[in-house]
């Protein structure tokens, strides 16, 4: 009798300690759903969704304040991926937030750059290297194509150029909506 009580208490104690240890050791910081949403967002930090960046938008979606169709750079594929993650129905991109465009990077025309630093201050991802009265250069690997540097430039010397798809930057696209299947019967009817 005593042995059984001692054994069971010991077992309970050990399990308790283990659970307590696991709770501290494997503690989940923050809200994992925000991380998952943030991982789908394109990290352009362009603010077209109406939030300061991708992470704030992810937090707003998780909190239910924002809809999933406010990210033009993410486009149709991004919306479908978000809908799948959150178990909602995909919907078309909200035109108030902008239109989907191919990925671009900013390029500075060196003949016209006057070194004013305004684009550097506007860049959300520190992709422009330069200082006052020195040449500004876009680091194209860092540029997200958010276009936030275009408006501040006093001499309009920044152009957006489309990124050529190469082996190094090619990515799987998110699975889009199922293609329309045309059955032989339809074709016969057409």
């Amino acid at each position, binding site marked *: 009798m005593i042995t059984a009580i001692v054994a069971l208490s010991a077992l309970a104690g050990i399990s308790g300690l283990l659970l307590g240890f696991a709770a501290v050791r494997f503690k989940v910081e923050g809200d994992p759903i925000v991380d998952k949403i943030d991982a789908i967002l394109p990290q352009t930090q362009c603010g077209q969704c109406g939030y300061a960046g991708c992470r704030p938008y992810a937090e707003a979606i998780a909190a239910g304040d924002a809809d999933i169709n406010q990210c033009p750079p993410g486009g149709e594929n991004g919306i479908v991926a978000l809908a799948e993650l959150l178990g909602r129905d995909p919907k078309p991109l909200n035109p108030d937030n902008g239109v989907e465009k191919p990925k671009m990077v900013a390029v500075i025309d060196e003949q016209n750059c006057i070194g004013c630093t305004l684009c550097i201050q506007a860049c959300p991802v520190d992709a422009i290297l330069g200082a006052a009265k020195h*040449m500004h250069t876009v680091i194209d690997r860092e540029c997200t194509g958010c276009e936030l540097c275009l408006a501040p430039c006093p001499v309009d010397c920044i152009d957006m150029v489309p990124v050529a798809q190469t082996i190094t930057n090619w990515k799987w696209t998110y699975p889009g909506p199922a293609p329309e299947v045309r059955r032989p019967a339809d074709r016969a009817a057409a």
Partner: protein
Amino acid sequence: MANAEPKLIRVEVAYARPDEQTIIPVEVPEGATLEQAIVQSRIQERFPEIQLNTAKVGVFGKLGKLAATVRAGDRVEIYRPLLADPKEVRKRRAAEGKRMGKGGGDLEPKAG
């Protein structure tokens, strides 16, 4: 924990040309100068046109001195001179009848 070894901090050294840009992560001892970080990154081997004694350097868009110390997370940048004379560019734009953009005027970064 021995205190004899100086703590290493992570910084980046960056240089950009229109055709090629690079950001090299380096670990330097705490209290190192911009110059030490640049030398340690061996960025001059890739871009021989960098002349440390004449080049302007800085951290995150702010001009600094080679002898200044770096802090963890800094991006040490090596700058190139402007090709255009800002006055000429503005004159040309005025002659073409184009307005200066939103940021027009002689805007210098805030004192600092």
